[in-house]
């Protein structure tokens, strides 16, 4: 081993080596000349001599390596079946790992394409209880078990205060990500994802323009001429990289905006989950609003209105902890000044500084847990594959024990032989890794397809990039060492004499003090691991089938869904209602469309419009005001969605004008009226404390239909209201078209109809009710599909392992079985003798796997629906599947053993 280090030292200091050798030669020659003996030989060929010296150092090592590699190729070639099985399991194992890792890289690890992303931080606030100073939030918030409510949105005044902290930040910028905006670009209406950013956004990030210029501080102030910067992708797709795009005008919410430039390729905003098309200054918000003055006041002067997100670049030398303590104190001071009552100061939101190298964390939050679950699954699958190959190598090592014993006794070093065996396994694993890249390529495509689920705007770009390839290379090497080391060490240890003596290695070599072989332990572990994986897969599949079996209360098939918002194009109030009504009539006239309806949101799309409700004669429970979900719909909505009317009547055309009416669902009657018939009662909608007038008559009761999400336990009490009831609130609507055939085939006709009605109104979010529901369970679907794949893979690999072990042990016991048969053993008892071994191994594996699964399934609880972590059905099905598969894998060699010709078996000894 010391030689290895000296060699390494040589490789690192080659230049010194050459110089020293030169000097040594000169010295030698000088002395030789001085000696001046007659007949003294001239000095030999210096170059050759130096070459010889050099090969001393490196020659051997590399010659041996290439010898080993050639030998390994021959050995792999000589045993095609073994090599094939090993390569396939390695390719699947490494490929699956690479595919999942590439998603992990894309979602969790990839930094933003900006300069020094590691310096970036994200600011958020969190609060356990209610926070009175946060009067309203326009943005996102979510709950986290330990911290409470978390939100990235702040009032603009907070940004102005924190931006002043030059000690902590070298830059702090504010932005609002990915607002959908109606735009007219080159005469065509579309909806664009627009980021609104503070003037220092691009300069802080160090993003450069690809054309024109970027937004600067002078663009971002009230009264500045409105400008926009295109993202490179949008410039490419919409303008074909035409430099003349710069300087063009586009309409955003009917306001002209000048394109001043294009940002660098690859950069698409702060959220890796959303591809921004266009970026506007923050101060353009009022320009696009219904009432610009109000918007201006609300956004820039209301310190209780939380809306902008902030990211900053820490000054060099400032640690996260320092930034956290300084900024939290500053924000606290600020928040105190915004409290209207002294009591509000006791529960202020707390500022938290988080790492910002990956940008916004919407994707990470959504997928990180699922990725870790999948990463664990594929890691276990690779472990299974490794165990398989180790087992095959062990078996082969025993059959090669004579060859190895001969070499050892002829003086080969143990390390030399181990190295040669390891070269073989690493070569195998690297070949497997190379094949695995093909598997990964295919896997990434399939998973992307699964995640996209028909949506074209998936921004997740997992690919086989450099970090992923590095991971695969490292994984392949480690895999080769892992499955190669134990068999190699085992093959070269111990006493050589028995191995040399045995004419052939047919005698089972039981080593003293080791009642169970390494091979058996590996098989037990394999059965255990694959049981755990199959149980996991079973839970995910069960969850998906539960979700698909949810009683919706409406018909999801053959409904085309799309969004239309004519408000930014100038329609308001009654004109807007008339526009939508007219559109609905025109859509109904399209051939193949059975009926058309629209509503403010589609069903089961995770949308919730909750409000208070007052029902005269019904006292709300104290401290718990009655809550009602509402949906604004047109008269044909219930019939189009096939939601049945159980009592009274549905909404009709005449209800679009006064008097005010509503159709409620069954749950409403159950929750508020004790199942009494609600038809004819009056209700008031709005905040109960403001006692709204009870002027809405209930005209009918509809069947319960899933409202918010198919994962909801029961539908909420719900009222369907005619869309004309609050004309001021009317904005964009979703159309539902029930079609005769495939819904998406009607999309072009719909587009034509809309263009004819008004070319400035864009058609967006084209989908179907089926796809819409599927997209809300995308994570469950992905997990179920991948989980089932991985479970099946694990099962197959474990069965191959079991089959291999049993077949090998049968082969070794050929002689013994021959004797038993010759002495009159019945074939059935031979089968049982072999199967007993299978049952013992599989049984031990099942027990261990079951215990492991019992303890670990709770970690996936958050992914389950309608299935408990230790779901008895999933557990027992998995045990049965695995047990049957194990018996099947073991039965084939057992049968072969029983069918053996005793004479042939005895002769083989």
């Amino acid at each position: 081993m010391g030689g290895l280090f000296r060699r390494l030292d040589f490789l690192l200091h080659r230049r010194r080596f050459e110089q020293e050798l030169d000097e040594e030669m000169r010295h030698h020659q000088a002395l030789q000349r001085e000696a001046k003996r007659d007949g003294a030989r001239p000095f030999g060929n210096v170059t050759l001599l130096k070459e010889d010296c050099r090969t001393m150092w490196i020659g051997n090592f590399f010659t041996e390596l290439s010898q080993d590699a050639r030998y390994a190729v021959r050995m792999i070639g000589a045993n095609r079946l073994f090599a094939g099985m090993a390569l396939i399991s390695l390719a699947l194992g490494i490929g699956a790992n690479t595919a999942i890792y590439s998603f992990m890289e894309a979602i969790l690890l990839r930094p933003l394409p900006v300069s020094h992303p590691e310096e970036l931080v994200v600011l958020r606030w969190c609060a356990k209880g209610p926070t009175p100073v946060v009067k309203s939030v326009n943005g996102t918030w979510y709950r986290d078990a330990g911290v409470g409510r978390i939100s990235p949105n702040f009032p603009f005044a907070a940004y102005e205060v924190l931006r002043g902290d030059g000690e902590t930040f070298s830059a702090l910028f504010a932005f609002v990500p990915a607002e959908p905006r109606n735009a007219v670009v080159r005469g065509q209406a579309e909806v664009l994802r627009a980021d609104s950013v503070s003037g220092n956004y691009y300069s802080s990030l160090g993003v450069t323009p690809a054309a024109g210029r970027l937004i600067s501080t002078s663009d971002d102030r009230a009264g500045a001429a409105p400008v926009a910067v295109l993202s490179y992708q949008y410039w490419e797709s919409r303008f074909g990289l035409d430099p003349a795009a710069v300087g063009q005008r586009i309409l955003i919410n009917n306001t002209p905006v000048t394109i001043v430039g294009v940002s660098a390729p690859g950069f698409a905003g702060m959220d890796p989950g959303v591809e921004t098309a266009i970026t506007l200054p923050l101060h353009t918000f009022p320009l696009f609003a219904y009432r610009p003055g109000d918007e201006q006041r609300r956004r820039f002067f209301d310190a209780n209105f939380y809306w902008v997100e902030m990211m900053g670049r820490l000054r060099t030398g400032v640690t996260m902890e320092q930034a956290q303590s300084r900024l939290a104190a500053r924000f606290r001071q600020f928040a105190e000044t915004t409290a209207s009552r002294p009591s509000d100061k006791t529960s202020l939101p707390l500022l938290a500084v988080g790492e910002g190298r990956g940008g916004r964390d919407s994707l990470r939050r959504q997928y990180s847990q699922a990725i870790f679950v999948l990463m664990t699954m594929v890691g276990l699958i690779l472990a299974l594959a490794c165990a398989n190959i180790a087992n095959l190598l062990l078996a082969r090592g025993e059959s090669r024990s004579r060859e190895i014993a001969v070499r050892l006794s002829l003086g080969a070093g143990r390390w030399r032989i181990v190295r040669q065996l390891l070269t073989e396994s690493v070569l195998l694993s690297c070949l497997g890794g190379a094949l695995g890249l093909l598997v990964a390529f295919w896997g990434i495509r399939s998973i992307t397809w699964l995640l996209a689920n028909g949506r074209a705007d998936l921004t997740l770009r997992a690919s086989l990039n450099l970090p992923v390839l590095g991971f695969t290379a490292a994984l392949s090497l480690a895999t080769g060492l892992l499955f190669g080391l134990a068999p190699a060490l085992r093959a070269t240890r111990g006493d050589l004499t028995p191995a040399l003596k045995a004419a052939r290695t047919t005698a089972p070599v039981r080593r003293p003090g080791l009642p169970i072989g390494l091979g058996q332990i590996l098989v037990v572990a394999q059965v255990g691991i694959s049981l755990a994986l199959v149980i996991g897969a079973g839970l995910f599949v069960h969850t998906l089938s539960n979700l698909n079996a949810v009683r919706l209360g409406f018909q999801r098939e053959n409904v085309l869904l799309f969004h239309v918002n004519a408000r930014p194009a100038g329609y308001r109030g009654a004109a807007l209602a008339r526009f939508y009504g007219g559109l609905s009539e025109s859509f109904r006239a399209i051939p193949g469309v059975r009926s058309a309806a629209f509503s403010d949101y589609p069903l089961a799309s995770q949308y919730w419009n909750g409000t208070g409700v007052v029902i005269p004669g019904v006292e709300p429970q104290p401290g718990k005001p009655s809550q009602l979900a509402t949906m604004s719909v047109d008269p044909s909505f219930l019939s189009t969605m096939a939601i049945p009317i159980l009592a009274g009547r549905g909404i009709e055309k005449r209800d679009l004008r006064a008097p005010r009416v509503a159709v409620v669902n069954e749950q409403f009657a159950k929750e508020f009226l004790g199942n009494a018939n609600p038809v004819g009662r009056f209700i008031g909608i709005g905040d109960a404390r403001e006692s709204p007038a009870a002027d809405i008559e209930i005209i009918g009761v509809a069947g319960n239909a899933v409202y918010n999400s198919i994962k909801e336990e029961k539908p909420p009490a719900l009222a369907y209201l005619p869309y004309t009831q609050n004309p001021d609130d009317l904005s964009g609507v979703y159309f539902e078209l029930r079609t005769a055939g495939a819904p998406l085939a009607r999309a072009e006709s719909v587009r034509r109809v809309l263009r004819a009605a008004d070319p400035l109104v864009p058609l967006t979010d084209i989908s179907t009710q089926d796809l819409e529901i599927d997209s809300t369970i995308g994570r469950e679907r992905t997990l179920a599909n991948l989980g089932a794949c991985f479970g099946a893979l694990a099962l197959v690999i474990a069965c191959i392992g079991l089959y291999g072990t049993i077949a090998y042990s049968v082969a070794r016991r050929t002689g013994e079985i021959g004797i038993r048969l010759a002495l009159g053993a019945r074939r059935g008892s031979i089968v049982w003798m072999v199967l007993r071994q299978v049952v013992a191994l599989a049984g031990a594996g099942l027990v261990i796997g079951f215990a492991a699964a019992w303890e670990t399934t709770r970690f996936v609880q958050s992914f389950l629906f309608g299935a408990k972590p230790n779901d008895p059905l999933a557990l027992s099905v998995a045990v049965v599947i695995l047990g049957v598969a194990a018996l099947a894998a073991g039965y084939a060699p057992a049968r072969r053993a029983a069918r053996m010709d005793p004479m042939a078996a005895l002769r083989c000894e």
Partner: protein
Amino acid sequence: MGTRPEIPPGTLYMLILKTLARVGPMHGYGIAQHIHRISGEVLEVEEGSLYPALQRMLIKGWVAAEWKQSENNRRARFYNLTSAGRKQLAREIQEFELVMAAVVRVIQPA
């Protein structure tokens, strides 16, 4: 140049090790001269085999090298026996004697 008796294959390491053991640290030229002289000018160690052999012994850790001032004030690489080299020398001598004795038995007239 007439034919010279070759150094028997495999014995060069032993000769070098023994030289270093007897004389102490020496440079390459010195080692060659010493073997030449002690062997009664029979054995001639060529540079082409001497220096690769020394490198090999460095790798094996039998000798260590050090740059020092030589007797006539030149910088030279001096080779020194290590303890591993000492053990190797003992082993090689033992083996060599065994082989020599055997060879002698074979070639002696019966």
